């Protein structure tokens, strides 16, 4: 019997649990040179706002031990350009389309969600956690009241299932997760990047133009895994787990901790074919351990 890799995120069936993380995969075009996008469960597009955002001054990237800081600042051409230029490309593939929404205020978020009225997409991912945008993203993701409010505001204006993406830069991740659930979230994704910094001691200046940025990569994996585990135990929503996933073993850890799907971020930079290698590794693990359905191992950690 063929084994089952299909997973269900808020009523949307993904062919397998492999998703790409927002902002690391653009809309898939570049990586389609190296992998078959049909073999992904879903592609999360880069963060999109109602109006174009220009982003932060360079340098925007700083490598760290086992990780990377970014301070891109959510540069994007706005929802209209995304819908015209990126979405038709994404729609050629069987991978589900997740649109990552950014805003500086609740009104911004509602406006960008409305930009997708009548547009064929599968899921929204609400980025209330981007640590780079000074004006608001940060505050909403770290304050349970704001998180609940913005979630509800979007739920009120759209029928597209809504995943809320959580910021790890909080003392109590479970509290924020519960707030998003109370606001009507259909799923959660976590984690976004952890705030960090790096200094060029010779120039006596931070490396990043924005001084501070978001850390991702293997360096954050234990933190991400712990948060997914805690949240999965506390809420009744499907979870897309992410943070440092770069091999099948990492992905399986997140699934065992309670994630329904897993997203791969900067591992794509280290190895453009990594998503396929992770998928093959999961299949091999299932074969070896006689697992018929990937959902069997979800949340097996007590």
């Amino acid at each position, binding site marked *: 019997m063929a084994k089952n890799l299909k997973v269900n995120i808020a009523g949307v069936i993904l062919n397998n649990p492999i998703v790409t993380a927002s902002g690391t995969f653009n809309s898939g075009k570049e990586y389609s*040179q190296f992998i078959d996008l049909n073999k992904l469960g879903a592609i999360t597009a880069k963060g999109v706002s109602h109006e174009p955002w220009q982003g932060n001054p360079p340098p925007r990237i700083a490598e760290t031990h086992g990780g990377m800081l970014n301070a891109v600042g959510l540069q994007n051409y706005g929802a209209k350009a995304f819908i015209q230029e990126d979405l038709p490309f994404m729609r050629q593939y069987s991978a589900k389309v997740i649109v990552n929404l950014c805003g500086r205020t609740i009104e911004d978020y509602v406006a960008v969600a409305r930009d997708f009225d009548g547009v064929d997409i599968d899921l929204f991912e609400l980025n209330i956690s981007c640590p780079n945008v000074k004006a608001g993203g940060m505050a909403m993701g770290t304050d349970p009241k704001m998180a609940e409010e913005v979630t509800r505001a979007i739920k009120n204006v759209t029928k597209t299932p809504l995943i809320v993406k959580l910021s790890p830069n909080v003392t109590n991740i479970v509290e924020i997760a519960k707030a998003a659930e109370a606001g009507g979230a259909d799923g959660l994704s976590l984690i976004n990047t952890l705030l960090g910094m790096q200094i060029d001691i010779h120039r006596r200046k931070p490396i990043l133009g924005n001084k501070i940025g978001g850390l991702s990569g293997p360096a954050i994996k234990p933190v991400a895994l712990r948060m997914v585990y805690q949240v999965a135990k506390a809420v009744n929503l499907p979870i897309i787990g992410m943070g440092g996933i770069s091999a099948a073993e990492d992905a399986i850890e997140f699934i065992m901790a309670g994630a329904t799907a897993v997203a791969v971020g900067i591992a794509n930079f280290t190895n453009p074919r990594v998503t396929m290698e992770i998928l093959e590794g999961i299949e091999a693990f299932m074969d070896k351990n006689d697992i018929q359905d990937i959902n069997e191992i979800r949340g097996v950690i007590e």
Partner: protein
Amino acid sequence: MSTDVTQKFFAAKILSNSEVASDIFSMTLHAPEIAGDVKPGQFAMVYLGRGEMLLPRPISFCDANPAEGTVNLVYQVVGKGTKAMAEMPAGENVKILAPIGNGFFLDRITATPAIVGGGIGTPPLLLAAKALAAKGIKPDVFLGFRSNSILVKEFETVARNVYIATEDGSHGHKGYVTELLKNGNNYQEIISCGPAALLQALKTYAASINIPCQVSLEERMGCGVGTCVGCVVKMYGTFVRICAHGPVFDANEVDLNG
């Protein structure tokens, strides 16, 4: 744009990798997958295969030999990643993604240009000089170094003249390369790669004598393929990705001061 050409990600065999000047290494790769497609000014992302250093390093093509299926990278050891590259033994494989970027605008060159390179910015200019010489336009080449000069012999075989400046006077003119470039009006264009201060000086000079100046830019890179929007320069007021839209730009179109 790089996303319109087919880029390849593959393991290339290291044919040689040795120090050619103090801290400067030359690595030749067996890469028939791309050797015939590489254009001057394009670069490769070199994957280090090291868990603690996740990001590939951008290195320009210094040469490409389609007949032999080889490409050559010349790089300076400036930090951990380039040190790891220097330690890669011949005979082993290294993963690369290439070719990346638009390359120099050579189609529009119809008369002698000035090629101006500074330090480790000189390698990609060799391939440009070769391509120009092949179409019968030998460039004048101006190279500036702190101390050790590199690739001078190679440039001499394809250039009309090669002028050298070193800051310590160990080779050629003592001082900056810009001091050698006096009669810019004799040239159709300036084609340049090097440190930001050199590019800025050339931009100003070219504008003052009203000739075009093309510059190859560097920025810290994440993906190298255009997805992370990390490697930007301001062009007409908006940030554009150097790996996807560059690395070569017309100097008057970009803000070189960040």
